[in-house]
């Protein structure tokens, strides 16, 4: 509860800060719409030559695009800005100020920066998702909806833990921004069902850079093609990564000596 209140406070601060730059709203709207337009036009080109893509019907791929935007929005809203700031603050020593705060430092670094305009991607993602579901005309039972939400949460936890591990590397290596670039390139591949990719790339996108859990798996849950093994696997992976990233974070903190502050 206290954590929610804290998040609310950071969110308010960010809204107040950004309200001075209202033009950013329109820039982000333009960029998000453009990015969505590319995805949709790309699908249109491909489905003008094929009826299904690796067994996925057009509206199912559309649902996947919705999930891709939704999760991408969450990453851009809070995960990425927080982790980038963490890396920055380890380098210039300002992490000291966070560590002196009475709350859990991992929690604070994870939520303290919110890029509110990225909410746009989340809204657009939800919109696309809703449109895809209507077009699929398929009854979504309570169970399926629960599976979808569960997989989305597991995916978000996996992505968050993965980013935290990458960002925590900065306690040992000062320059790690480039590793984040790798993630961004790999996330692009999540626009498409990972089942399309040849084995080595599919494993890479599932276990090395776990993009598949964030996009393909929730979309599969929604379109009712997910076995319980994958679901259990995703939940187990989320829990394991969450613990590993926590352990890693504490190991990193022990190394931290406040470089120059």
């Amino acid at each position, binding site marked *: 509860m206290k954590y929610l209140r804290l998040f609310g406070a950071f969110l308010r601060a960010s809204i107040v800060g950004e309200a001075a730059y209202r033009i950013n709203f329109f820039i982000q709207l333009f*960029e998000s719409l453009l*990015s969505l337009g590319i995805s949709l036009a790309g699908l249109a080109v491909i489905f003008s030559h094929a009826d299904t893509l690796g067994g996925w019907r057009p509206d199912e791929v559309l649902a996947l695009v919705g999930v891709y935007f939704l999760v991408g929005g969450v990453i851009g809203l809070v995960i990425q800005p927080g982790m980038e700031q963490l890396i920055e603050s380890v380098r210039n020593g300002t992490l000291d100020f966070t560590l002196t705060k009475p709350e859990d430092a991992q929690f604070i670094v994870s939520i303290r920066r919110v890029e509110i305009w990225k909410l746009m991607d989340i809204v657009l993602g939800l919109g696309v998702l809703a449109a895809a579901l209507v077009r699929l005309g398929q009854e979504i039972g309570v169970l399926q909806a629960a599976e979808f939400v569960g997989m989305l949460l597991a995916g978000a936890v996996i992505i968050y833990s993965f980013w935290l591990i990458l960002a925590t590397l900065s306690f040992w290596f000062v320059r790690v921004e*480039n590793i984040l670039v790798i993630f961004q390139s790999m996330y*692009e591949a999540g626009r498409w069902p990972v089942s*399309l990719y040849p084995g080595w790339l599919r494993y890479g996108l599932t276990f090395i850079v776990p993009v598949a859990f964030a996009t393909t798996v929730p979309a599969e849950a929604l379109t009712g093609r997910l076995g319980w093994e994958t679901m259990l696997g995703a939940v187990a992976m989320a829990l394991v990564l969450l613990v590993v990233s926590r352990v890693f974070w504490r190991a990193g903190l022990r190394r931290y000596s406040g470089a120059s502050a």
Partner: protein
Amino acid sequence: MKAMVELYIQQFKTTLTMMFQYRASLLIWMIGQVLEPLVYLIVWSVVSASSGGSVGSYTTADFAAYYIILMVVNQVTYTWIMYEFEYRIREGGFSFALLKPVHPIHSDIADNVSSKVITLPVMILIAAGLGVVFHASISPAPWAVAMFIPVLLLAFLVRFLLEWTLAQAAFWTTRVGAINQLYFVLMLFLAGQIAPLTLLPSPLQAAAAVLPFRWLISFPVELLLGRLSPGETLVGLGAQVAWLVVSIVLMRIVWRAGLRTYTAVGA
């Protein structure tokens, strides 16, 4: 002319050492350059396999060859000058470049070429590896291979000049993200990145032929794939030269206007 050659030799000496410092970053940035075409390669291979082994005039192996060559052509011609320019102007660092007695575009060209001296061998290795994995094969005529070099060079020059001109939008606004993104969308669709141009709806194909985009990426790729007749190649070469002239003129006009509005922000 001699002064220019000497200038470039000196530039290359410094930029090569500089770029070599960034070798790890350069390799990491390549991941995106490889992955994007690779994803489209895979998507189109799946489409092709599910519709009887070909889409339009492209077989599954053709798609592999198309995207692997595209990867290399894109690597040779790409620039990051938009980000660089925005940063320079936002941070005011551009003032120093203006003090030098030569046009700043020359050091940018040297930067760009140096980075590619380092990354291109790696890219060619990756392309060869992917060619084996995806069973790509090409059989271009000897004249097409010979023409590929000048066509690729022209593509690089035109793309560099156009993007250098576009980058100067930063003179007027330091929020150039939206402009750049619009440009990338046009490149994605009209330069043949999202699909070979012949698979696009015909209005888009027509637009691609009139605008510069096709000549920057798709044209060299099609040439090396052996899909162009000598006549079509000459027409393409003419289009490239025409765009080269247009882009030089544009660059000069925008540069003069931009310089007049330049006030170093932040420095």
